[in-house]
């Protein structure tokens, strides 16, 4: 299985996310993550999808089927061009006094941040590529992870050309 990050520009209208997610599930495509948000144009929403497929053929199917949706304006496979991708994670870890120094060390090494702290917990925030986030999650699994929230990956193309003009 290979992963690809698709940037999908859609009309900012009610029901669009249902159209996209419904299509993905009924065509039995494998999705690693999906996230959506406003863009520089108020009428356009950008959906970031990480899809995992067996073959180029299957990838074409995902792109072609999504392209058929009337409210999909444009799809670009950012994994095929120079791009930067990032994901944000927040991890709540049980941290009593004796663990705290170790955790601060880990946070420093990963260039993460501690964004909340209580006598029992810390909340760690990290932005990075998925592999980096997977790595910190693995290291932290030695401690008691209370909960994790991840955004899924988002990406932008490198250079001056935006997705809408690719």
């Amino acid at each position, binding site marked *: 299985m290979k992963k690809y990050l698709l940037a999908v520009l*859609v*009309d900012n209208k009610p*029901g669009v996310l249902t159209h996209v997610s419904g299509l993905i599930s009924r065509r039995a495509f494998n999705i690693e993550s999906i996230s959506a948000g406003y863009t520089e144009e108020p009428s356009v929403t950008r959906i970031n999808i990480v899809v995992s497929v067996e073959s180029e053929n299957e990838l074409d*199917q995902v792109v072609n089927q999504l392209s058929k949706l*009337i409210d999909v*304006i444009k799809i670009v496979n950012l994994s095929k061009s120079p791009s930067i991708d990032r994901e944000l994670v927040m991890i709540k870890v049980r941290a009593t006094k004796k663990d705290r120094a170790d955790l601060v060390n880990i946070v420093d090494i990963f260039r993460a941040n501690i964004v909340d702290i209580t006598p029992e917990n810390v909340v760690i925030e990290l932005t990075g590529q998925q592999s980096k986030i997977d790595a910190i999650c693995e290291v932290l699994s030695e401690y008691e992870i209370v909960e994790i929230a991840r955004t899924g990956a988002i990406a932008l193309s490198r250079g001056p050309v935006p997705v809408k003009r690719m």
Partner: protein
Amino acid sequence: MDFEEVLDLRMNGAQAVLESLKKEGVDIVFGYPGGVVLKLYDEVYKMKFPHILTGHEQGAVHAADGYARASGKVGVVFATSGPGAANLITGIATANMDSVPLVCITGQVANPAIGKDSFQEVDVCGITTPITKHNYLVKDVRDLPRVIKEAFFIARTGRPGPVSIDVAADVFNTEFEYEYPETVRLRGYTGDYTGDAAEIDAAVKAIEQAKKPLVFFGGGVTSSNTSEDLRAIVERLGAPSASTLMGLGCIASGTKGFLGFAGMHGSYGANMAIQQCDLLLCIGMRFSDRVTGRVAEFAPKAKILHFELDPAEVNKNVEADVRVLGDLRWSLPILREKLMASKTDFGAKHAEWLQHVAELAASHPFSYREEGDAIKPGALIRKIGSLMDEDAIVVTDVGQHQMWAAQFYEARKPRQFLTSGGLGTMGYGLPAAMGAKLACPGKKVVLFTGDGSIMMNCQEFATIADHEIDVKVVILENHILGMVGQWQRLFYNRHYSASELKGKRDFVKIAEAMGLRGYRLTKAEELESRLPELLAEPGPAVIDCVIPQEENVLPMVPGGKRLDEMVLGGED
């Protein structure tokens, strides 16, 4: 624009719907009223908008589908919220699978009631998303004209399909300044599918190199109205041709080299030709599992050329060696021109292959054995075919009779063999036949149905009786759900589980009770002595033909088998 004109354009949402339908050239709506569409129906009443009240919303949507398939125009349906909309679902899915243009307008509960589990509330957009080309929920009357304009544009352009418009009840009542847009502006959809001519050059080159080509076409030729180009191409190539179930009629049955339809119950000639050809020129088709048999061994020796509008259909089930993406209205005329200009003597090059395929086809034609004085389905359908003129429209339901109709009825033109191919919807036939007749009042319409299928929407007998819609309903009554029974006979030790119809129903009496003439034929001789006059009588009628119970549809490619692993009938 002066003040008076502005005044004229003030109207409510219900009027705006009907005004917009008029502007789209809609001449009839099929529907069923209810609570939230009362205002819409009040305007139907006041404007005397042509409307057919069916017995069930499913009847309305299939009727609109039959209307659309027969005419090539967009079929339009009205239904109320909740159960009304939910009853459309099977019909919308049927149209979606076969790429039929529909616009379904449903009432939704009023804006303040949405999301509160209100009386007769159902999430129509949620339900219809997987089975429509697009759908809308209109909550503001000012969006209504644009949405209707877009819906018709989307339904009829590109690969046609159903579009659902759900309208909140209060929108029908709200007055606004009506203006119907001249054009459609959608950022994600242009409806223009002009392709790259270089792809056609590659196809021509492959055709010039082929020794044993087969032209294989589907419903895309029907829906793009390109059968004339198709026929010219086939003629120029002097090659054999075959259709899918949905392509029947695009090349007249009996045309030299035309092998009929291929697939699970397709002809021996067509299936063998697919497995033996060295080039399969596929036009407007999507390689359904009913067409390909075991897909990994479909057309194993052939280079696959795929002419297709929908990019998602290319390489979906069968990988294409050469693809020509684009509207057939664009690609086929160019292909035709280039083949005409080619220096290759296609006729000479393909003569031997054509002869070989003709011999294959002649060795196992569709056939049946006479059985005493029983009415054999093949004989019945052939007889009716001989009594129909070349413009007649045949509609089928789903099951054994559908396959017999496809095998034995000689469709001569496109849009004259209407059948639920993709979804296989029992109950499709009667309402679809009604819609087809209303679309083409000058043409004869015959429905072939079974004693299972007809019961699924037999309430529409009353509709065709009330409106004197001249449909001849031919029931092939074998007292069993025939296709289910055939599979049980062949693969489940004759365990006729829940498939026998040994009840006391009497189709002649049902017909009469609903206001139709009803007849029953039980003997083969009646095909000569009675059938011609029954079909010639003006007005709708039900002709119940009792056929043997244990008749199989053959040939048959059992599930998971190659196309050339057919179980044959007749002499075998």
